[in-house]
């Protein structure tokens, strides 16, 4: 940055004609020197984008096109047959609905419980709160496999296995440690005077949480909520373990069985189903990418 602004003034002569020509030449020189960089960036983008593009394009191809045209060919027409087939035969609509039914309440509960716990552990002052925070933090380290068998037994005995409740409950429990920890960290960044001022004005401790604490965390809630949204929406392990019937399958479980069903014989409907999955996430990502990137990064460094 500094080098860029200093060098022209240091070497440039003030005569107008030369000044016009020289930056021009220099610009060309700079462009040539930057060429390897642009090639590198272009390669990088191709590597990242091409597989996704290939699949989305493939979702519009007919079976005949898959068999006769080269794999990098564009689809001949924009036909939506694969999408229709995925929705009707492949149960994609049911899977989507299940995923929504599971994800929305799970994320809402995780965030609400996490913010409240974070507030109680960071803003409220009591003996042993650091110990409790560490105790909750320890849960991040434990692999999900460790709790599957006991939970499966409990859900079975409680007659919950024919519902989506096992998924929701498990996601909430698995989401609490990281969310609580992140929320406590966000509350730590807020000056204490903010909370003190609220109590001076006469609001009770619980009221302060709802009136001051919760609204103040709007941004953090969105960020943490997005992180949890992606981890719940994308989960396979929990969904696979606790969905006993195909009518309860989430989108990821549905994709897996769809791929078993179609195998390598029919790509069209499979690609359509995957594309539907990807396109929704792409839309969310395009609008909220900064928050998502910040949230995921924070979650990993602190966790």
């Amino acid at each position: 940055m500094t080098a860029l602004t200093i060098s022209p003034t240091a070497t440039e002569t003030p005569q107008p004609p030369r000044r016009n020509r020289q930056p021009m030449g220099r610009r060309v020189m700079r462009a040539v020197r930057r060429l390897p960089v642009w090639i590198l960036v272009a390669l990088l983008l191709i590597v990242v984008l091409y597989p996704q593009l290939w699949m989305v394009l493939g979702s519009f191809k007919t079976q005949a096109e898959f068999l006769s045209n080269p794999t990098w060919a564009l689809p001949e027409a924009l036909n939506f047959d694969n999408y229709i087939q995925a929705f009707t035969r492949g149960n994609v609509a049911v899977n989507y609905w299940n995923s929504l039914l599971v994800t929305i309440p799970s994320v809402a509960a995780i965030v609400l419980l996490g913010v409240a716990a974070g507030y109680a552990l960071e803003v409220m002052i009591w003996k042993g709160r650091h110990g409790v925070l560490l105790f909750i933090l320890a849960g991040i380290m434990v692999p999900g496999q460790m709790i599957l068998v006991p939970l499966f037994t409990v859900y079975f005995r409680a007659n919950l296995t024919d519902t989506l409740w096992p998924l929701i409950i498990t996601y909430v429990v698995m989401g609490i440690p990281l969310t609580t920890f992140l929320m406590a960290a966000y509350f730590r960044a807020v000056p204490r005077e903010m909370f003190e001022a609220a109590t001076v004005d006469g609001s009770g401790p619980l009221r302060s949480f709802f009136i001051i604490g919760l609204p103040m965390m709007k941004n953090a809630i969105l960020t943490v909520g997005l992180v949890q949204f992606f981890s719940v929406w994308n989960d396979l392990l929990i969904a696979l373990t606790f969905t006993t019937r195909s009518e309860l399958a989430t989108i990821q479980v549905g994709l897996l069985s769809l791929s078993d069903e179609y195998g390598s014989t029919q790509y069209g409907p499979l690609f359509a189903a995957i594309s539907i999955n990807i396109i929704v996430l792409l839309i969310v990502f395009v609008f909220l990418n900064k928050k998502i990137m910040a949230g995921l990064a924070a979650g990993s460094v602190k966790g």
Partner: protein
Amino acid sequence: MKSVFGDRKTIIILLGPALLLYVLLKIVPVAWSLGLSFFEGNSLRGFEFVGVDNFVKFFNDGAALQSVGVSVVFAVLATAGQVTIGYLLALLYVFVLRRGSAFVRTAVFFPMVLPTVAVALLFKSFVSVGANQGPVNDLINFFGFDSVEFLASGAGTMAVALVMTWWGSMGFYAVLLFTGLLDIPEEVIESARLDGANGLKLVRHIVIPLSLPILLSSLIFSFNSTLKVFDSLLALNGGGPGTQTAPLTLYMYRTAFEYAEYGYGSTIAVILTVLCLVFTLAIFRSSRTKVED
């Protein structure tokens, strides 16, 4: 003031539900699993106390040991690749693209938010052979070589799984390390430049040492998550061919839920947990002494 922030009722109302759920459905099951690992059987057949037999069985179980190998090899290679590629990208963002890196950063990050199942199925089709041949083999044919059936061998499946994992997560590690690199004070780099450090020298002697803490965090995080790999290897090739690429997580899942061996399944889960802890501590320890040197 202190009394308001120390209000017991408020603390219980706010913390209570989360803590209760956490203890009842996480801590208790962990202890339960730990206990189950000394039993054999399932809830229908009943349980029988077998002491440490399950652990003895584990170390004599070829399939189990193979799955440990798969998990560890995958975790080591995936971590090495993720962090290395991520770091190179981060250096590219900070020192070459500078302010213009926002778009590239975002585009390369995107695969991270995609479901692993979708990515695995995408890569499965991408390298496929036969009637619906994917672009990878088309390219190989284009250069005059025969198609390669990557998923027909354990090594091939592993290679595809690794490339896929790097592809999906390199942008994430790049952003993580990019943030770390931005924390290096501008003056430090400027003064190193004035002292004649440039290019690789600057990276080796100034940038890497200063970004060591974030590199360490990335290593631990990456290793911890790749050691638990499940979705990608299951969706890519079902842990196959045979069980050649079945990680410990998949072996545990199959033992517990397909063969209904709850006791032995719990033993495998316990070993997985111990493995995660041991490796995390090992990386932490070794890197810590290096930082202090």
